[in-house]
């Protein structure tokens, strides 16, 4: 068994997981749905505005390109898919199992309208990057004020 230095935050993290499991169990019992259907992962992401475009980066390590789906509808950007285990190991062979597998979804409302046909998505080193160029009218621009005498 692995020996790990004690940390109070780990204990809190453990408590959080226990509570999450309790909620999952409760929801499964009351809704009759399985855990997988009630729980979807929300992988961490960054969203920033460079002035002429919105950039969204989502961490999806170990996820295959064909298991990711990116859609834009109006101002709503949805990234979803599934993280699959490459090779199933028996539970008793695990020393440590922290990584979470299963379906994930992230949806955000973009702050501006974007050019639909110029959206670019790349997937490299486990990070999905979506670049959404803003429509001309949405870019910050200076408006000259004319002085009328």
């Amino acid at each position, binding site marked *: 068994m692995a020996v790990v230095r004690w940390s109070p935050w*780990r204990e809190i993290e453990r408590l959080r997981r226990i509570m999450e499991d309790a909620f999952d169990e409760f929801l499964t019992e009351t809704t009759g749905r399985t855990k997988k259907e009630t729980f979807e992962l929300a992988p961490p*992401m*960054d969203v920033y505005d460079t002035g002429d475009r919105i950039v969204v980066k989502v*961490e*999806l390590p170990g996820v295959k390109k064909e298991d990711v789906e990116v859609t834009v509808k109006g101002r709503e950007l949805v990234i979803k898919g599934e993280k699959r285990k490459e090779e199933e190991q028996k539970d008793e062979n695990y020393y*440590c199992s*922290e990584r979470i597998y299963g379906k994930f979804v992230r949806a955000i409302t973009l702050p501006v309208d974007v050019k639909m046909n110029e959206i670019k998505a790349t997937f490299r080193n486990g990070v999905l990057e979506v670049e959404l160029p803003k429509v001309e009218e949405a870019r910050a621009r200076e408006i000259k004020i004319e002085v009328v005498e």
Partner: protein
Amino acid sequence: MFFIEYSFPLMDIYETEDSVVVEVDLPAVNLDDIKLTVEGSRLVIEGVRDKVVTGNVRYHVMERYFGRFKRIIELPFTPSNNDIKANYKQGVLVITILKRTYNVVLEG
């Protein structure tokens, strides 16, 4: 997140017939920035993940962790150097440590 430094990077450790495998979720790191060391039976994964954003940007959502990280794993045995292999693919660092089996000859 509050306890992020203890939960980054997340890993799985499992044992197969002939090896111990450590899989670490480490998206978007440079291999030069990761250091993997073994001291006795202690395996240490440490490094730094830098943010690569150029120019002046305005953040709307900031959830990803950047900065230093370190994870220490106590292996159930002391591996020799050429029994450890590591590779990085799709943002996942996979470390495979071979288990040695010695056949003890029975005398008498």
